[in-house]
């Protein structure tokens, strides 16, 4: 427009504070938008509104106490975060956990992923403007949460993993409930597709929006479904299999378009893959111990340790530098949301306000995960 109008008539840029209290930012995230009318020229991410210094708290706590803190990072993949810390400590102490523990952990992780993606799907619809999807997604999510509550005792911050196993044995209803859930998911996931995926408005809102190329995705350190939407193969479950992932057959869901719709499709496919993984494991949960005895006070031998897991949002890394004391000298969480959010400016430049909301949704941010 500026070329056409020449020097004399200019449009005025203005700033808009999106957040920290805004329905689209999924928490207390502040985006400072530089707008020209509706067109976004720049996005500044302003973080730190719910920083709780969890990493610093970890330096104070013993390893057993640290586990439950990780619930509070990415609260939608609480179980997987717990698992990361447990795996790290078990590796460092050379504890070989039984097959039963591995399988239980894997099933739980996949259930967590399903529940997280179900919530994401509902909220995605809400961000785009379809309010009903939220309730439909919660119907399935509630079933998963019931399974969690029956076995772990909590619905969100499960804190089910402990160092050396899991806290309780599986509840006797577990297998029955999971099978019912899988049956329902197989019936309802196509409904998700009909309601949202195929919808022409929805597709027009996402297709070609928020494009990020494969090179940029790698350069920005994107991970998880966000990167897989750009064709980057980065599934930790495939690259560094942990727990029982090496014995199940599943496909890494990769789409190469790099736009919001690709990221959306990745997550929908991941839900199907999770169903597939659980199906393989649920009938043959091996017998064995569900919890190995560990020392009352765990001390890691001095050294550096790293454990990566694939949460619902991507590559979650735990790094510990131990000096041999009862708590880590330094604990660092590499959270997937932080890296993914960093690419928002790249994705959203030149698009509209409504697109920012859609892109944020397809990145699937959880603000406590970003702020820690």
């Amino acid at each position: 427009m500026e070329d056409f109008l020449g020097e004399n008539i200019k449009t005025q840029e203005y700033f808009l504070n999106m957040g920290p209290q805004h329905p689209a930012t999924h928490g207390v995230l502040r985006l400072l938008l530089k707008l020209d009318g509706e067109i976004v020229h720049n996005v500044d991410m302003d973080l730190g509104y719910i920083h709780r210094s969890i990493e610093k708290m970890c330096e104070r706590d013993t390893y057993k106490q640290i586990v439950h803190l990780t619930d509070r990072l990415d609260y939608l993949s609480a179980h997987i975060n717990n698992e990361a810390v447990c795996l790290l400590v078990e590796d460092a102490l050379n504890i070989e956990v039984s097959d039963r523990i591995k399988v239980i952990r894997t099933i739980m992780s996949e259930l967590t992923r399903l529940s997280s993606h179900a919530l994401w799907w509902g909220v995605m619809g809400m961000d785009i403007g379809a309010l009903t999807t939220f309730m439909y997604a919660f119907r399935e999510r509630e079933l998963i949460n019931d399974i969690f509550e029956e076995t772990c005792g909590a619905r969100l911050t499960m804190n089910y993993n402990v160092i050396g196993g899991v806290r309780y044995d599986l509840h006797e209803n577990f297998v029955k409930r999971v099978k019912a859930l899988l049956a329902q998911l197989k019936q309802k996931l196509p409904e998700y597709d009909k309601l949202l995926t195929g919808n022409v408005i929805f597709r027009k809102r996402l297709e070609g929006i928020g494009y990020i190329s494969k090179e940029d995705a790698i350069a920005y350190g994107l991970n998880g479904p966000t990167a897989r939407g750009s064709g980057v193969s980065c599934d930790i479950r495939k690259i560094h299999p942990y727990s029982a992932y090496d014995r199940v057959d599943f496909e890494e869901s990769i789409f190469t378009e790099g736009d919001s719709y690709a990221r959306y499709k990745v997550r929908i496919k991941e839900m199907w893959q999770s169903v597939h993984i659980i199906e393989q494991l649920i009938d043959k949960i091996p017998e064995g111990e569900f919890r190995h005895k560990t020392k009352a006070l765990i001390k890691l031998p001095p050294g550096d340790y790293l454990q990566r897991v694939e949460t619902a949002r991507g590559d979650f890394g735990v790094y510990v530098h131990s000096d041999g004391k009862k708590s880590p000298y330094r604990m660092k969480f590499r959270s997937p949301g932080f890296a993914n959010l960093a690419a928002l400016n790249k994705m959203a430049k030149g698009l509209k306000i409504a697109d920012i909301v859609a892109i944020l949704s397809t990145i699937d941010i959880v603000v406590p995960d970003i702020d820690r």
Partner: protein
Amino acid sequence: MSYFSDIIQGTKSLLTGMRITGNYFFKNFLTRKDVITQQYPDNKDTLKMFDRFRGEVTLAHNENNEHRCDACTTCEKTCPNGSLEVIWDKYKDPETGRNKRVLVKHIYHLEMCTMCGLCIEVCPTNALEWGQDFHHASYDRGQLTKVLNKPGSKVVAGLKG
């Protein structure tokens, strides 16, 4: 020609979506079968949580108003948030003549508790238990600080600590 096929495809996809929501509407309207929400305050009395539900930390009392806490303070040390405070007193056991601890107040700060369950795990005498109560809302923060041992309660006789 894509202009017209776009219109037809788009309309079709919209109608597919409407069929799904419409199905649910009429099913619910006629039978209330798919309703997934609970009518909460109505079912307050019949609502039962799962056995392992972690509502709050409680100190188990038996029918004689006796608990199993010997005031060893392991739970207090283990708690990552400082939600538990064990206040104890010394007394001389008349039989053995040794100094022993007795529990005066087991204070529980619910507002600080993250329900991690470490205290219950480490308790050497299995005195602490999960409570099923979830009606924790209150207008006053002070009400969230609870004393776990009931008034007049004693330690179970013969407890080894």
